[in-house]
């Protein structure tokens, strides 16, 4: 699309969000924290701007990658030690514990 025409369309049809603003609002958009008006303007801009559509997809992809990150392995000796302490704790009456837990 001709850049000038695109700029005009953005200005008059897409509610004046610039690409920069779109990039700044991506997380708000994905979190659903934009107002209805902002959301509509955001989507109007996306409809007209392939670059911002790509950017949004890249961000979603980045998040998907992080979601698939392998879990942090906890060494077995840590778990065994904790289970041992758990068994000792079980023998004790409940009130004998030390510091209060903040709820």
């Amino acid at each position: 699309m001709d850049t000038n025409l695109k700029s005009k369309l953005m200005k008059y049809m897409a509610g004046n969000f610039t690409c920069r603003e779109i990039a700044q609002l991506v997380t708000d958009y994905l979190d659903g924290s934009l107002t209805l008006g902002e959301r509509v303007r955001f989507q109007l801009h996306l409809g007209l701007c392939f670059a911002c559509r790509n950017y949004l997809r890249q961000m979603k992809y980045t998040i998907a990658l992080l979601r698939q990150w392998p879990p942090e392995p906890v060494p077995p000796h840590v778990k065994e030690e904790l289970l041992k302490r758990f068994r000792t704790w079980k023998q004790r009456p409940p009130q004998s514990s030390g510091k209060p837990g903040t709820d």
Partner: protein
Amino acid sequence: MLNHFFFLPRGHGIRQIESAWIKYVLCPRPLIVTVGLRIIPHSDVRVSLYYLGSTISLSPLTVHDALNLDEPGLVQALQAGDERVFAAVMDWYSGSLLRLAMSYVPSRAVAEEVVQETWMGVLEGIHRFESRSSFKTWLFRILTNRAKTRGIRESRYESFGLSVSSTDADEGHSTEDSLFVAEGSRTGHWIDPPLAWEPDTPERVLLSKECRAAIEHAIGNLPVTQRQVMTLRDIEGVSSEEVCNILEISETNQRVLLHRARTKVRRELAPYIQGGKM
């Protein structure tokens, strides 16, 4: 085995990924799809379904699903000293706790100790747990309290953590600014419009060592609070409300930190995914 239901619009397909199994479906009309999940013992099952290139994340399984216990049931079982439940809960959360602890303290060994201390804290406090917050939030709060204390003792948190809010705040309005035209009639437009990334599955991308190293490097270089928010929200899949309670930050602050972190990680990732500059 657990079933999840979700809505799939007409004409869209989904592919199976990792721990969820599902046949490829192309819908002739809107459908409610059942996804069968295998519960893998001792692992947090996360499910993402790919939906024409974009990702739908189902809410991850919770420890409650895996144990078939609701929240009060879980707390009661722990109070009663049910070792099976304790072992399962510990298995479920320890990896996440460890990852968060590593953002507070200088070494993995110390982080492991913090995780141990956290579970001891759970045992000490479980009889007084009053469900004012969820068990998960309570658990992570014990961890952050102990990790902070420990981090100060190890003198790292003092230099990085406590001053971190100012570091984060001083970072300028946006980390994306350099990507946009700053002056003239094209102000606010992309200098280099982002390209479409090759739609490969995250699993395949994560098999590449360079890519994993790039993400690790990017996360490791984030200011501490950004790293904490990203660890909890994006890696561990904790809800934004819980993240705010765990880290004691406001919803807005949380979103700003998350956004900055994601922006940086995306930028580090770009060269590995599209093989060019971003």
